[in-house]
């Protein structure tokens, strides 16, 4: 579910960077204000723990394939939403830098998709009410499974939205949704069961760790008001950036949606499409924006590429020059590499 830089546009990447940076700042402030300072080393070490836990595999029942823990929900259960969001964000930073698992510009998207939904939606609104103060093994499992599924579904859906809005992929919106949601339903179920098994082990072995979380007005508790406010802010920011982008760059979103609507094999999804458009008309910030608008950029595209041969020749020259530069530099700086 980690998005790469190659598929996103600067507008989408930048908007999501802004959203994630604001959330990181807010969470850092919260952690500094509310938590006892023991939490900061704990957060760092637990982040490393999630990496370590990824090295231990398990067999997924019935399939024979193996999976590993994702960890977002587990962190929220152990640390509370604000600290968990920071830890997830830092895990993603390390993954982006060292494993190229998700790009640097896409980091904002990834932090939001994989951090915001488990920490600020799935944990406080689903896991906590179900597992609650008087946890039992059944309630823990039910809460964890439902929360993990909901968090991953929302995350996957926003991956689809961000990718489609970026307009680099030609994959139609509906196909992409139909591809992503079922896969992440399965992943969410597994993640929920695994999280539940770890949490119930800890709950039996050392309930103090979890009780610290549930006791009273716990420092990490999130009020619904704040969640709603943050979501609104995120929506406004994204909407602002996207609308500016959509109008200034006709061959991005509109081009892609024209493709979606214009392909014959997708005729069956028209109902869904018009439903989406209706919902969008009712809720959108820009009511006159139509989803299947004609693409002014589409026709001019082929004419622009008349001078292909010179383009290819020039491209080869450029690559050769770049390679030669590297070679010469390597010779000039002996004893290295």
């Amino acid at each position, binding site marked *: 579910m980690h998005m*790469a830089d*190659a598929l996103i*546009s600067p507008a989408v*990447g930048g908007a999501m960077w802004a959203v994630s940076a604001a959330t*990181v700042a807010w969470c*850092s402030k919260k952690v500094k204000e509310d938590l006892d300072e*023991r939490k*900061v*080393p704990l*957060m*760092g*070490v637990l*982040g*490393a*723990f999630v*990496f*370590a*836990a990824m*090295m*231990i595999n398990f*067999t997924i*029942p019935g399939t024979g394939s*193996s999976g590993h*823990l994702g960890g977002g929900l587990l962190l929220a259960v*152990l640390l509370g939403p604000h600290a968990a969001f*920071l830890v997830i*964000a*830092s*895990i993603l930073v*390390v993954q982006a830098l*060292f494993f*190229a698992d998700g790009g*640097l510009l896409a980091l904002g998207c990834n932090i939001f998709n994989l951090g915001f939904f488990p920490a600020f939606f799935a944990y406080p609104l689903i896991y906590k009410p179900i597992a609650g103060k008087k946890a039992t093994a059944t309630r823990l499992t039910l809460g964890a499974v439902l929360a993990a599924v909901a968090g991953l579904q929302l995350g996957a859906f926003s991956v689809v939205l961000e990718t489609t809005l970026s*307009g680099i*992929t*030609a*994959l139609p919106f509906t196909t992409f949704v139909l591809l992503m949601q079922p896969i992440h339903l399965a992943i969410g179920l597994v993640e929920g*069961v*695994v999280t539940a*098994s*770890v949490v119930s*082990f*800890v709950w039996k*072995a050392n309930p103090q*760790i979890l009780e610290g979380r549930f006791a009273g007005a716990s420092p990490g508790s999130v009020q619904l008001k704040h969640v709603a406010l943050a979501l609104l802010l995120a929506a406004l920011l994204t909407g602002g950036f996207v609308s500016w982008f959509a109008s200034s760059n006709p061959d991005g979103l509109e081009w892609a949606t024209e493709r979606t609507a214009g392909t014959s094999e997708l005729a069956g999804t028209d109902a869904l499409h018009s439903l989406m458009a209706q919902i969008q008309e009712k809720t959108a910030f820009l009511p006159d924006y139509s989803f299947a608008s004609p693409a002014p950029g589409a026709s001019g*595209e*082929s004419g622009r590429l008349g*001078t*292909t*041969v*010179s*383009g290819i020749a*020039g491209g080869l*020259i*450029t690559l050769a020059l*770049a390679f030669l*530069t*590297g070679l010469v530099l390597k010779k000039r700086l002996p004893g*290295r*590499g």
Partner: protein
Amino acid sequence: MAGIAGAFTNLDVLDLLSTGDTAAHRLDPRAKLVTVLLFIVSVVSFDRYEISGLLPYFFFPAVMIPLAGIPPRYLLGKCLALLPLALLIGAFNPLFDRQPLVFLGPVALSGGMVSFLSILIRFSLTVLAAFILVAVTGFTGVCLALERFRVPRVFCVQLMLLYRYIFVLSGEASRMARAREMRSRGPKGTGIRVFGSLVGHLLLRTWDRAQRVHMAMLSRGFTGEFHIRRPLKFTAQDAAFTFGWCSLFLLFRLVDLPRLAGSLLTGVLP
């Protein structure tokens, strides 16, 4: 599991590379961070069918890799290992976008093929840039740069702690996984129940470790700040590095140099 264990050896290698002492390593982390971010933004800001305009950006890795003494074969191997991912994310374009866009004599290339190629180029450029950044800056450098850019202290400190403990805990986890593998036969013992208690134990130990770490840090006077050997100082050299590369990226973005060179060449030749 071999894949992830392999990824951790890679992490070791990158960490080792970042301790080098070349001109590229000595630059201020902030200069490198800004340059790489601008590089990525300008690469991904191109139109989805762009190919020739992206090629000049290969000059950045071509200069930085020898300058920083990074073994090119290692970096190439790392990129090749990620190739299946790049193929996967781009593979849908040729399927869905079939309108002919470019004609090479009798051969027609569809829009999807062109954008697929463009995605592959974007992917290799952005991945290379990210690896170069860590290899010449190191994770601590990146964190320090982030802190100077007003990223909250809490976040930076926890990033550094996370990074330090990855090595310790991943060693512990891989030993646990190996021990379980030796005691289990076939699918027996690798199910979710055993996994739960295995990871649960690791978690309890981690929790205790975190408390000991914190006490040890407090008794050594930790006040939320990390000290480094090479203090950050943004010199004229750093400014020149940042400004030079950024203006080059801007030039690459605004002028399609390969096309220009190509038309010059094809114009001269009959």
